[in-house]
């Protein structure tokens, strides 16, 4: 059986020390993998895949800020759009070329949005933005196995302002190389 249980540390020990358990904040989520068989009554879930995968040997990445489009790491978007702009296309293509020629290189595409509107819709929109870059990279020769996608929605803004200048910079996909 390849089913793996992801179990979470229970804060019962903490709670037991308090007359009012609600006063105690929950323990941080920690992962532990426990192999199970089908007869186990414990919960079954697909294996957790930590985002911060172990660093691979000499995982290559291009130098930031050098080599034109390959030195760029961010692709920007219009409001409520996931269409890769003319600004973004050469950047996606350049990194796809790098991935195609460096089989050990891996990237995480991180989708982000500006502060306006629904948090959950923005989380989905950020995911779609990152997927749009993944599609372009895949069409330009990168293997989908080299590309991980995640969205932060509007939860991790790079700029804290409440104007279009800040919003424009927050509507973006960042290309982050593993081990970079």
């Amino acid at each position, binding site marked *: 059986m390849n089913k793996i249980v*992801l179990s*979470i540390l*229970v*804060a*019962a020990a*903490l*709670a037991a020390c308090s007359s*009012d*358990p*609600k*006063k*105690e*904040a*929950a*323990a*941080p*989520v920690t*992962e532990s993998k426990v192999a199970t068989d089908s007869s186990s009554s414990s*919960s*079954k*879930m*697909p294996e*957790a*895949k*930590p*985002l*911060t995968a172990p660093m691979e040997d000499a995982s290559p990445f291009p130098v930031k800020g050098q080599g034109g489009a390959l030195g760029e790491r961010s692709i920007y978007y219009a409001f*409520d759009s996931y269409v890769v702009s003319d600004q973004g296309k050469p950047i996606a293509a350049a990194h796809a070329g790098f991935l195609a020629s460096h089989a050990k290189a891996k990237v995480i595409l991180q989708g982000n949005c500006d*502060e*306006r*509107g*629904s*948090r*959950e*819709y923005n*989380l*989905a*929109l950020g*995911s*779609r933005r990152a*997927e749009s870059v993944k599609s372009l990279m895949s069409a330009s020769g990168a293997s989908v196995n080299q590309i991980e*996608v*995640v*969205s*932060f*929605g509007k*939860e*991790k803004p790079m700029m804290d302002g*409440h104007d279009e200048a800040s919003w424009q910079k927050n509507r973006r996909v960042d290309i982050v190389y593993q081990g970079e």
Partner: protein
Amino acid sequence: MIRSVFLFFYLVLFVTIPVQAELSLEITTEGLKQIPLAMLPFASERDLTTAISPIIIADLQRTGLFRQVDVSGVNPLPSEASQLKLADWRAKQATAVLIGSTSIEHDGKIKIRYVLVDATTEQEKLTEVISVAPNQLRGAAHRIADAVYEKLTGEKGVFSTKIAYVVKDGPNFQLRVADADAYNERTILSSKEPIISPKWSPDGTRMAYVTFELKRPLVVVQNLSTGARKVVANFRGNNSAPAWSPDGKRLAVTLSRDGIAQIYTIDAEGQEQPRRLMTTRAIDTEGVFTPDGKSILFTSDRGGSPQIYKIPVEGGNAQRLTFTGNYNVSPRLSPDGKKLVFIQQNGAAFRVMLQDLDTNQLQNMSDNALDESPSFSPNGRMILYASKVNGKGVLALVSADGRVRQKFSTQAGDVYEPAWGPLQ
């Protein structure tokens, strides 16, 4: 003629009630006819660690529906209806008088007796005796306020309920729970990573939410009395937007494990494989069960812009519910299922809108610029949402008739993602 003059006379009343050091509250009532009440101090309550009547009075005044008449100078304080000079209270326009008394029992418990008297008919509308431990006096006061509110308005009070919300202070995120009057605030989760979408289980014992603790969004269910947590959705990509089924057994969640955000249902223990609600090439998210559990409302951009749709819980054809505007998101239904509240973009503003699902009539519920995450109080009377004032995250309340408005803010940091707990 006098009536029509009053129709055009808008009274804007600002009442600032210091709730506690952290949260400040501002109430605005517009053009509202308030019910005058005489709520007297309870006899002997000065002997208690926590006086009862000020909590009851604050609860009822916060609704914006009641006005306290001048009750100063009453001596001795009456504890029986027979001791009341009701003609005096009628002269002060009071429609009802609330009196009470407290005593400390030999076992240390506090006995509270209260009477609500109709000032016109002189009938006792409500008489009750309750006995509580000294550390449960606030809860007892909220229960009395609930009973008085229900007797006077015919609808359930929500003073004994709790609210949850996220506070972001610098790099720290906290999920907190407080009484509906913002007292008894406690942190149930602290993290350096974002927390969004807290949702109370229908019985109020568990909280589902989205945590980024492992650097990407996962759905967790936390037992509120033990603090024990369980990851119920941890698939490739994003796991988010939990919503409880009315029986508390299942959750609707949004997963992007197949590339694009789609809605699935899972069991609340996270044991079974997720069931995909439908397959589209568009963003589908923010699923929420209808009160009868038979349908799910959600946000989708399948028509080219985000709009709100409804689909049977076993799948099938989706029905579009919103037609005006190019950005309608975050649907929530009133407890009777008849009204839809959501966020609509109007020019540069994102505002709370209320839609009558029988007539499809729309009402703008806010004049803010950046509203989000609206939901109904469990009695359907209030809409709770997050907004921004001068760039700072605050919580806001508006009555479902649009006439009473309140705002909550913290001194430090932003407060957002409010969720109102169920009736106790």
